[in-house]
């Protein structure tokens, strides 16, 4: 991967994180905003496969963990998005081709990602999230992610296709 590609990927990830905290905060539903970094990771998984997406998920998660205004133990979103990237990459043969498949993948990934984050918080007491609270937030998060998928996913997937290094067709 060339330096330019790496730079562009970093910019995309950071942009997703910044947009999600500073632009979508005005459009939040009960404080829940679309998880754009997760959508970028899912798009990467559908285009490039599990290994690439897991690495991107780690970096994207780390960006969420460290960007202000977070106040939780670093590595928790990284863990969640690594799993998300890997899982989404594994189902890409079925989901990558159809729009419905992609939307279902986003919904599943959003559920898995947010739940993993909440679970790690419960284990670490960081803070001890009440289960009821998690159950209230997760469905809204999934719904919001699905809602913005048609606007974000095709765009990011196209970007990843263009960024893909040229290679022999497989």
């Amino acid at each position: 991967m060339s330096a330019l590609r790496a730079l562009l990927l970093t910019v995309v990830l950071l942009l997703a994180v910044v947009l999600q905290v500073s632009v979508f905060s005005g459009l939040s539903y009960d404080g829940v905003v679309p998880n754009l970094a997760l959508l970028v990771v899912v798009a990467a998984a559908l285009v490039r496969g599990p290994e690439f997406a897991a690495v991107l998920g780690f970096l994207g998660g780390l960006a969420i963990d460290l960007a202000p205004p977070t106040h939780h133990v670093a590595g928790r979103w990284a863990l969640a998005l690594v799993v998300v990237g890997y899982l989404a990459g594994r189902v890409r043969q079925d989901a990558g081709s159809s729009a419905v498949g992609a939307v279902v993948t986003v919904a599943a990934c959003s559920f898995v990602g947010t739940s993993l984050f909440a679970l790690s918080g419960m284990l670490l007491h960081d803070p001890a999230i009440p289960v009821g609270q998690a159950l209230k937030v997760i469905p809204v998060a999934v719904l919001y992610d699905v809602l913005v998928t048609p606007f974000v996913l095709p765009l990011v997937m196209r970007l990843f296709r263009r960024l893909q290094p040229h290679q022999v067709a497989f």
Partner: protein
Amino acid sequence: MRPTSPGRRPSRAVLALLLLASFTLITLDARGGDDSPLEPVRSAMGDVLGPVENATAATVRPFAAIPGFFRTTGGLRRDVARLEAENSQLKGELAGVSVDRNRAAELDGLLATSKSTGYALVPARVVAMGPAQSFSRTVTIDAGTRAGIRPDMTVLNNDGLVGRVVRADRSTATVLLLVDQDSVVGGRLGSSMEVGLLRGRGTVGGDEQLDLDLVDPSATVNRDDVLVTWGSKKGAPYVAGVPIGRVTAVASTPRQQSVQAVISPYVDFTSLDLVGVVVDRNAKSDRTVIRAGSMEGSR
């Protein structure tokens, strides 16, 4: 990185490695506390992304007002009805003002104290809000160490107490809101001067509520009592006398050794914008510091 071809099983090694890396990070950061090895990375990220968040928020701020332009007559009618209802309610409250006067006088006194101590405020705007998916209630404000802001400073707005600064980068700072689960504030009731500890519930949306545990089990708490900050040593993290909210419910169980009350905060945490950070009177700042004492000519 090579993309996985459809026929080949993806390598588990990459996944294992990344999971291990995540666990390592979590362990390092959780064990490290304030001097965790990730702290430099965190402040570097804050220094880089802070200005970006400031700029983004400044760009979208004009658009945030757009929905207001499209309010229909129906919406305005609803507003009128709501305001009329509010007005009649306020008239009713005014009738019982003699009862409240005592409390008001006490609160006024406390506020006067806070004014006479002359808190200096650095004005700041909220530029980013932590997503609810992260389960912590934090916001970024567009003032950092350059504006004289340090961790453990009190943040308030014109309605009351907002929270405290938990970390400050060069041009931004992170504020832990009162409603976060990690937030504990010492509070004092305006009517009886009783003190207690106020904890956030960490819930999102709707009616925000806080739990107050009074220290004195024999204390009497009444609905609509006003709660102000108790204040900490040297005003860190909380200065004294900032209004927090009012009592909406009281629960006292004989078995428990304390009286509990539910507090409804004055501040609307879903629409935070302009806030003030209480700084030292002689703090150096790159922006105009509002000084209560000097504005009134008392000094």
